[in-house]
């Protein structure tokens, strides 16, 4: 689990708003990065740590909604909170369909904004930890040999050693050896542990 400091990315073409928001969030103890346009944010190589975006909708150049679409296209995990001074219902619908945390009308109450920012960061932190866990499981899975993966696949379906030996045409003792090696490599204590890992890492469709 990463413990990097949480960063709030504020994207708004109005410098007074950028300053006011960054003043507030810095006081609340967050790291803040401000951008005057969608493009300046895109060229900025932002950190991989937990964070969230506070995004204005109407801006010269790319709009907030267009930025959202581009970030979705590159599978960015950063949660987005939209703020708009002239939002419309279709706009907010589009934003939420695109996965935004929420869509707030300007001016925004500090407490409200803080609440949704915390929510967003919480989300992002769990996304990041899930991602980290998934990557770890995948890393371990990739250390298995071809035969071990075959045995792995049979084991998580609840097959007995005898049946595994029959279907793979190997001896039962060899199956036992493979199982022990699998448990070691995957750091698992039991078959249910293995099943849980498969679910976490979306290994459902792994090919033995």
């Amino acid at each position, binding site marked *: 689990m990463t413990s990097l400091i949480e960063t709030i990315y504020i994207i708004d073409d*109005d410098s007074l*708003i950028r300053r006011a928001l960054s003043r*507030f969030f810095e006081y609340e103890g967050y790291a803040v990065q401000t951008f005057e346009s969608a493009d300046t944010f895109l060229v900025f190589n932002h950190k991989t740590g937990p964070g969230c975006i506070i995004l204005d909708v109407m801006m010269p150049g790319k709009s907030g909604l267009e930025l959202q679409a581009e970030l979705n296209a590159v599978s960015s995990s950063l949660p987005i909170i939209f703020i708009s*001074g002239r939002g419309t219902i*279709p706009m907010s619908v589009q934003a939420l369909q695109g996965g935004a945390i929420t869509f707030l*009308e300007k*001016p925004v109450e500090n407490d409200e904004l803080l609440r949704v920012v915390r929510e967003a960061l919480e989300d992002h932190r769990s996304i990041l930890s899930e991602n980290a866990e998934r990557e770890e499981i995948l890393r371990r899975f990739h250390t298995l040999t071809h035969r071990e993966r075959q045995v792995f696949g049979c084991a998580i379906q609840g097959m007995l050693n005898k049946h595994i030996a029959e279907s793979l045409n190997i001896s039962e003792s060899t199956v036992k050896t493979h199982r022990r090696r699998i448990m070691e490599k995957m750091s698992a204590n039991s078959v249910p542990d293995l099943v849980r890992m498969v679910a976490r890492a979306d290994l459902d469709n792994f090919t033995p």
Partner: protein
Amino acid sequence: MSDKSDKIRILVIGRNLQHQAGLLQETDPEGFRVRVALGLIDALDPVELDPPDVILLDSTESIENSSEILMRIFNHYVTNQISVHTLTPGKENSDLNTCVDMRTGVNQLAEQIKSESALFRRIKNAVDTKRNSKTPPPPDQLKIDFRERGEYLSQILENLSGIIVVRDAIDPSSVYINRAFEKITGVAREEYYREPGVFLRAVHPDDRERVKRSWLEFLMTGGGETEFRFQQKDGSVRWVWARNAAVKNPDGEKVLVLTIAEDITQRKRSEIQLMEQKENLEEIVRSRTIELENLNKSLSQIIEKQKQTEEELRQAEESYRTIANFTFDWESWTDPDRKLLYVSPSCERITGYTAEEFMDDPGLLNRIILPDDLPPKEKHFQDHHNNPGIPSQGDLKFRITHRKGSIRWIEHSCQPVTNSQGQFLGVRGSNRDITLRKQIEEQNRQHRKELARISKETTLGEIAATIAHEINQPLTSILTNAQTAQRVLEDNFPCCPEIKDILSDIVTADRRAKEVIQRIRDLLGPKTIKRSRVDIGKVIAETITLLSSEISIAGISVHLELAEDLPGVNADRIQIQQVLVNLISNAIDAMTVTPVIQPTLTVSTRSVKTNDQVEVIVKDTGPGINPELSRKIFEPFVTTKPHGLGLGLVISNSIIDAHNGRLSIESDPGQGTRCVFSIPVTPEDSP
């Protein structure tokens, strides 16, 4: 004119008429002396040696082959005023049904003459008329009922540059010729009245044959025209273009016979000059073939051009003649007491009522005028009769109910008529049917109304949204700052109540401002989109119609390149029309403010299959937008127009945005501007 005997000398020409000749002689042996010539050749001697009073001519006698003889007979007809009648003998001797008075060319005898006695009466009348008219007519020859309206007519006729000869169709000896005759022929009118033969004698000797031929043609067919020369006593020559026409009254009876001869000397001269030029040129070309070939070509072009000019001139003359013969507008003449003297037949075309009905029923006009329009019309008529002197040029417009029930708009012009002493004789009025013009005006008005409505609907909403945005921005920073300050204060300086109150008030005021703006937005904000399947090509065509007057005033040519079988788009028709109105108006303005050569507006559509959208492109050939302005073209209140609000593109952009489409503008300074917007296809039309 031999008048030795009291007997009427009748020459019957044609073997088929022998029976009629015998009958004539029997009918009145004392009064008639009838001679028969079996053919045209046989008729020549009697005509020239002993001119008869009346000629009866078998109309089946071949005219073409005997034109020479006819011409000679005709000569006598002109000089001796012989009355010539043609008969077509039928199978039965009494079947005399076609009888044209050659002298006037009028069909007055063409009515069915059932009995020979009727024919004889006719002949007698013709002879009597001729005898009575032997005394030279008074100088003011026009005996026709022109006296009353003649003041008007003769004023016009007298001043025409062409020769006008007006003959009464019933009484051909009643004749009028205008002053132009004197100018063109050098012969006094009195001479003509005394002796009509001077007309022919004034014609250039080489052209007399042609003149006679054309007169004959007119008598036979009722049409025909000719160009010929008058030769004045001093030898100078005037070319004229002459035409004969019969003027009919509304019942189809011929009333007047008109001869119109326009002076075309000027044109002829340049024609002759041109001919000479061309001949000279050809001579030169012949001697110096190659190097002059190009010159010849260019000169031929010049000649062609000049000929074109002549043709135009000729056409202008033609239209002038048409005007002289026939008035299109509904003309009326009233005397100083507002009594109607004359109404032109064209009143029937405009009102459905005939001239007679107007003449017989003085109240008719006022009855067909719409009650609302009557008082101004009455006032106008009263003013112009009581205080004559000021002509009116379409000042008065009123509506009438056509006989068939439709409403017609009339534009009335009038001018006072005075005689040479300046005495007021009445008013000449001219009523023009301007219904079509009014309808077009009304359509334009409706279009404008719709245009204004469409643009108002969204402009207000856009202003509200724009103000909301512009004010919400500072409100946002105020609120955030105030609340941050409250937090900082609370944490670090809890003992400062005044500042705490101040910040609290700022926050409250900010929230109130936000509410006010929210209310304005709710009230005026953008209306919800009423989506339906919209045929974008149709909307484009409608918009072009809506703006057609602006387009034509600016002299812009429009190219529509609309893709066929374009899918319908899912859109609010009115809002999309508003976008088109904005973009097209911008294009028109761009090409109007800075004049461009051949201003062209192109509107095209295409289907973008990859993302199920329809693309509309509005392109102008205006000066383009400078790059600095181009960057902030979608910001509110940015405009290039002196009186523009700077919202057109903002509104268009937000409409297209709300339709999940995209609007973009490309402009190369000096190359024009290209606006492109896309709208998603309706679900039912997408594959």
